[in-house]
C-alpha cells in the first residue's frame, strides 16, 4: 500500500535509526567522514524511495539494507551483486587466522572491563582488520539487537553464511581488542 511522502513522516521513521546507522557506517568504513557521507547518501536514497516502503514493515532493516548496498557500490566499487557478497570463500579472513584466536574461557583473568578504555579509533582499527563483509555483519550485530535472520535479511545473504561470518568476525575482533588492551596496559 502506498502512502503519501512527507518530510515529516519520513523524519518520524528516520530519527530512531540514525545512531545505529552511523555506528554501522563508521565501523564499516572505518572513517568518520566517510560514515557521515554514507549515512547522508542513504538518507537521500531512502527519501526518494520512501513511497515504496511498506509502512507495516521494518524501516530500520529497510534503511540499513539500502545503506549496505550503497557501501558495496560506492566504497568497495563492486556493485551490489549479492552473489559476490555472499559467495566469498571461508578463506576470506586473510588478516587474522581464526586458529590463532584466543580460546574464550581460558583467559578468565583478562580484565574485560578494560575493553571499555578503547577509543573509537582503536575500535575502528579492530574492525578494519576484518574483510568488508565481516565488518558489515559485525557492525550490525554490535550496534543493534538483530537476530541472525534479520542481519541476513539486511545483508542479503543466507543465514548460515551470516552466522559463520558473525562468529568468526567477533572472535577476531575480540582477539584484536584484547591485544590493544594488553599493549596499552603492558599486560602479559
Amino acid at each position: 500500500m502506498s502512502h503519501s511522502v512527507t518530510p515529516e513522516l519520513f523524519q518520524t521513521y528516520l530519527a530512531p535509526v540514525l545512531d545505529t546507522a552511523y555506528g554501522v557506517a563508521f565501523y564499516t568504513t572505518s572513517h568518520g567522514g566517510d560514515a557521515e557521507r554514507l549515512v547522508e547518501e542513504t538518507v537521500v536514497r531512502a527519501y526518494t524511495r520512501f513511497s515504496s516502503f511498506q509502512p507495516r514493515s521494518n524501516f530500520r532493516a529497510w534503511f540499513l539494507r539500502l545503506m549496505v548496498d550503497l557501501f558495496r557500490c560506492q566504497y568497495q566499487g563492486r556493485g551490489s551483486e549479492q552473489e559476490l557478497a555472499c559467495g566469498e570463500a571461508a578463506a576470506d579472513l586473510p588478516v587474522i587466522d581464526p586458529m590463532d584466536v584466543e580460546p574464550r574461557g581460558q583467559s578468565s583473568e583478562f580484565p574485560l572491563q578494560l575493553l571499555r578504555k578503547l577509543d573509537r579509533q582503536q575500535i575502528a582499527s579492530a574492525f578494519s582488520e576484518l574483510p568488508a563483509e565481516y565488518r558489515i555483519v559485525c557492525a550490525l550485530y554490535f550496534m543493534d539487537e538483530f537476530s541472525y535472520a534479520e542481519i541476513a535479511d539486511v545483508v542479503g545473504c543466507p543465514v548460515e553464511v551470516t552466522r559463520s561470518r558473525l562468529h568468526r568476525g567477533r572472535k577476531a575482533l575480540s582477539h584484536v581488542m584484547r591485544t590493544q588492551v594488553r599493549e596499552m596496559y603492558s599486560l602479559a
Partner: protein
Amino acid sequence: MISDTPPYRCKDVRERLDDYLDQELLPHEIQWLREHIEACRACATLCQCAYEELAEMRAVVQKETRGGLTNETRVLR
C-alpha cells in the same frame, strides 16, 4: 562429531556457545546446554566469560559512536 542428543559434552557446548549467547538455539538445545553447564564448572566459567566479554564489547562499540552524526544529517533538509 557434534552431538544432537543429550547429554551434551563439553565440545557440544563450545560448538553452540555463540548461538546460545545470541539466543539462537532451539528450546530443547537450551535445556540440554544448561543441564551440562549446571554440572560442569569449566563450561559454566566459559559461558560466563563469553557472555561478559560480549556485553563489554557491545557496550564500548555502541558508546564510541553515540552522537557521532552532525545535526545537518539528523535534520532532513
